Structure formats: C-alpha cells, structure tokens
C-alpha cells in the first residue's frame, strides 16, 4: 500500500531537517502532542527541540519573522493553520518576501516556504473552507506550488524548501488522507503518464492516443477530475487527457498546449471561485497562444462565500458531476 499524502509531508519535513540544520518550522500550535491543526508537523518538535517554533496567533508577523530569518541565512518553513488566514500575510508576501531579491538587485535571497491548507467539504463554513490560491498567482518573485497524489508531495515540499526564493505551498485538507497513486495501478491501470519539468513537475495523464478533451487541474481537484474522467470513459467512451500542475505560478503551460493541439477543447478545474481565477488565466493564455479554434470551460466554485450547510456547500463547490457534464458538453456528447 502506498503512503498517505500527510505521511509523506511529515516525513519530508523530518528528512529535510535532518539534512540541513538551517531549516526551522514556525507556526501556530505546532508543538507535540498536538503537532499542528492537520498533524503535518506531528512528532517533529520532539525530534528537533528548539527548531519548531510555536507562535502566538499572529500570521502576518510569523511570515515577516520567517522572512527575516531567511534573509539572514536560515531556511524557515511557515505553517498558516488555514489557507483562509493567508489574507493576513498578503502584505508580507507581496511587499516584502516577494520583492527583496529583485529590488535589492540580487544581493539577497529569501528561501522561505509558507505551507497552508486550502479547501472545503469539511463543513467549516465561510472562513475556514476557501481556496484562495488565485490571489497569490502572478505575484512577481514567488512560486505557488500545490502537491497532488501523483507526484510525491514529500519530494515537492523538499524541493520547495531547497528553492532560494519564496514559495507558497498550497495544500488541501482533503488531500492529507489520500493515498499516493502508483502508475499502472488502480485508477492509473490504463493510463499513460508523462512528466515534464523535473523539480516542480507537470504530469500529462492520457487514457487514449485520441483524446477529445483536455482537463487542466491541480491539488485535490485532481482526485475529482480523475474520477469524472474515468466515469466519462466507462459511461460513454469519451477519452480525455489530464494536465496536472504542481507549479501554479509562474505559469508554464507547454504540456497543456501540446495536449490542446490534440483535443482543441479545454476544461479547467479548481475549487476557488470562478471569477478571475486560475482557470481564467489558463484559458486566456491558451486562446492567445493557440491558432486553431479552441473551446474552453472553467469549472470552479460559484461566486459566493462557502456556506456552512452541507447541501449549500455541495452546491457551491465544483463536483465530480459538474466536471463530467462539462466533458460531455465539450465533447459534443
């Protein structure tokens, strides 16, 4: 049996800290026995006394303190307990961490990682369920990464820590208990997986040499997308290709464009609200770049806060069914 995403994230932090004493963890409620709200840091404070800093509830200053540590030769990894609270760190990221290296003409580097879990479907309501990745996309000077079950989340996190620039590492609450996939097994039994980009990889997952629709997605949405794609395949024999991104920003869409040359139909799948989202940028770039006619569709949340009631939350967030319908629609089924 493969490992859980949560296990791999935890193991990779331990491994990274064993290899490099400059690495420190900093965030709220990180100490054992609690080990962080989603347990990603469980066991680490006991193993590395003094290198895990549990903090007051001060997301903005935590991020600033970590930026200062990074400027002076350490490699801090920040945990923001809920992705929703990343609004509080926005100034520190945009006006400080992201800018220093370039504005100071390359005199300094800011090896900072900010990890935070996004996402709903846990009934946490409007301020603990959002997917706010889009607000960090396109900020010059930072990378935005998102782990998934196909690439190794642990390796992705270790590579993020080794990066010399600031990285927003956007996890998803529902991804933690997911098991990592193995090629040629389970859902991927009949799939062909190709990887482009070594460090922060993009995967092309094909189920046929003649796919009709390309689906672009990241993070936990890959779980929904994969299920929808398999259902579309079994129910109506509609073949698709999934482009799974680990790096959301800066945008590197070459594998996507290659897939679109085969399908000429694009669906983007994300959990944030649809307006001005990740998918909006992807679709625009595809339309700018590609000369042949292209059909696009963005699957995302309704442009509303995320309601607490399960029925409303389900209606607001994108579902497997929504993705499947979009596939049929674009495929002309």
């Amino acid at each position: 049996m493969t490992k859980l995403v949560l296990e791999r994230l935890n193991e990779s932090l331990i491994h990274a800290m064993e290899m490099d004493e400059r690495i420190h963890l900093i965030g709220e409620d990180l100490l054992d026995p609690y080990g962080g709200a989603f347990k990603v840091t469980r066991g680490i404070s006991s193993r590395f006394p003094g290198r895990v800093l549990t903090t007051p509830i001060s997301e903005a200053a935590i991020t600033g303190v970590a930026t200062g540590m990074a400027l002076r030769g350490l490699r801090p990894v920040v945990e923001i307990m809920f992705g929703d609270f990343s609004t509080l760190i926005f100034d520190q990221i945009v006006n400080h961490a992201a800018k220093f290296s370039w504005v100071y003409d390359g005199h300094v580097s800011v090896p900072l990682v900010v990890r935070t879990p996004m996402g709903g479907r846990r009934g946490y309501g409007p301020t603990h369920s959002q997917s706010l990745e889009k607000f960090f996309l396109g900020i010059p000077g930072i990378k935005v990464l998102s782990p998934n079950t196909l690439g190794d989340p642990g390796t992705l996190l270790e590579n993020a820590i080794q990066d010399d620039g600031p990285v927003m590492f956007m996890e998803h609450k529902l991804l933690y208990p997911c098991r990592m996939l193995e090629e040629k097994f389970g859902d991927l039994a009949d799939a062909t997986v190709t990887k482009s980009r070594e460090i922060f990889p993009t995967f092309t997952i094909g189920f046929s040499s003649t796919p009709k629709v390309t689906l672009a997605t990241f993070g936990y949405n890959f779980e929904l997308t994969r299920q929808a794609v398999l259902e579309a395949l079994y129910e109506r024999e509609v073949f698709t290709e999934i482009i799974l991104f680990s790096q959301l920003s800066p945008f590197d869409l070459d594998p996507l464009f290659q897939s679109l040359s085969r399908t000429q139909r694009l669906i983007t799948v994300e959990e944030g609200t649809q307006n001005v989202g990740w998918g909006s940028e992807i679709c625009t770039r595809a339309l700018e770049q590609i000369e042949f006619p292209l059909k696009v569709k963005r699957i995302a949340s309704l442009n509303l806060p995320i309601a607490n009631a399960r029925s409303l939350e389900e209606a607001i967030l994108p579902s497997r069914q929504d993705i499947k319908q979009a596939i049929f629609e674009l495929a002309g089924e």
Partner: protein
Amino acid sequence: MPMNRNFDWYLQMLLIRRFEERLLDEFSKGTLNGTTHAYIGQEANAVGIMDALNEQDVVFSNHRCHGHFLAYGGDPYLLAAEIMGKVTGVVGGRGGSQHIQWKNFYSNGIQGGIVPIATGMGLAEKIKKSGQIVVTFLGDGTLGEGIVYESLNMASLWKIPILYVLENNYYAQTTPLHLAMAGQIWERFNSFGINTWECDTTDVAEINILAGEAVKYVRKHNEPGCLIIHTYRYSAHSKGDDFRDTAEIEAHKKSDPLVVHGIRLSSALRKKAEAQIRDLIEASFSRASLDPEPAIEELIST
C-alpha cells in the same frame, strides 16, 4: 572625548544635511523623478546610534532611510545614483529612495512591515549565535500598525536581540501625534516587557551614550530593547505636504543638532568640514549624473 570623534560626528551629520538639501534642491528643479523623505533635523539620531553599533550588526531602516544609510557608512555617490535611477546605484536603480540594501543595511517602504522582518533577523542571529544584534527604525506614525505589536510580543517572548529605535518626530506625514496615538509610547513597549531608554535631545553625544547603553543591554542580555528619541524634522514629510506652524518649526530649529554639536568644534574645523562635505556632495552628484540608466536587459537579470 577625542577630538576626531567629535569631528567625525559633525562631518557625518553635515553629510546627511547637505545630501538631503541637495536632493530637495534637485527635486525642486525637476531633475529627479519620484519623491523623497528628508532626514533634516534628525541627523543626530542616526549618527549617535550607528556609532554605538558593531560593524557586523544588522540595520533595517524605513522610508526615511538616507540619514541611516549615510551614518551606517553608505557611500553618498551610490545613494545619489540610486535615487537618480542609475545602474550604478546601491541596488542598480531598482529600489530608489526607500528600498536599498548594502552590507548588513536594509530598508523598505511599508510602514510597520519591516518590524517583524527585523525581528526575525534578530532571531536568526541568536540561533546562529553570531553575537550580532539588529537595529530597526520606526517612526511615531508606524505605531498605528498592528503588526508592530505582533512583533514586539514575539521579540519579548523569544528574547530576541533587537533594538527598536522609535524616532518620534511628532508627525505622521501631516497628522500630529495627538490625533493618531493614545497613551504613551514607552508604555506600549513596556507592556510587552521590553525595556526602554528615552531622550528628548538633538545632542549627538547624548544620543550616542544612551544608544550605547541600550545596545550593550540588548547584546549582553540577548533580549529586545527600545530607544525612544523625541525629535523633529525641519522639512516636509516628503514634498509639498507640510502644513505645520512655521513658528513651531523655527522654534525647533534653535536646537539644530549641527549647532548643538558644532559648538564643540572650532570655527576653523567647522569650515573644514563644510568644505570637505561640499566637495564630497558635488563629486557624488556630478559623478552619478553622468552614469547610465539601467538597460532594459537588466530587467531579467537575477
């Protein structure tokens, strides 16, 4: 006190004064792009504090950073070139007046935003056991920013070797202190368990002694401190935004730090300093003015 120290202090304060005057003059002639925040009137603070630091200590300054940079030992030519937008500037013309980095000196332009960063730098120096401390500069106006208090809390909790220097010049841009701040400044630091040193003077020697005590305490005890200096700027916050009573400004000018300290020097030495600084400023600005602007290719480097 040795004569050369008194002369050096005077020279440094005069350098800041004449540099800022030259900048304001260039702006009024329309030869410079953007804006500036002059340090005129506050020179004794920077000079007194920097002389109390070790060479390896770290300094994080704010929007009004020219005086801090020059007192730190920064080259007026590099700063002039930076503000002129020349490729030879401190950071190649990318940062301008408020955003510079040289050796262990840093500055940035967001009120309060630098405070947690400087605090984190102090934490890093403590973890590395470098023996270095961090000094960061705040104004009275910065005390309105919530992130300052988040930072003070952590600095005190974790015993971080950082000296917060609070330069209270009584105005946040155009807003007087009494319209922007409740309570007392020292109480804000004391309530986090941070020791304060406080003075109301323009005498560089007094400031240097007090800064020396504060710096020594921070280094020895590995914990934060705060040096509060009540001061006054003689020029506008930046440009064209001065609505203060001219009588008030004139009254403050009676305790001009250059005059207060200048009486310790002979008039011959003061004249010597003037000539030396006049030449340095002229050489810096004229050399910088001949330098090229950054090429577009510079955009993609590093």
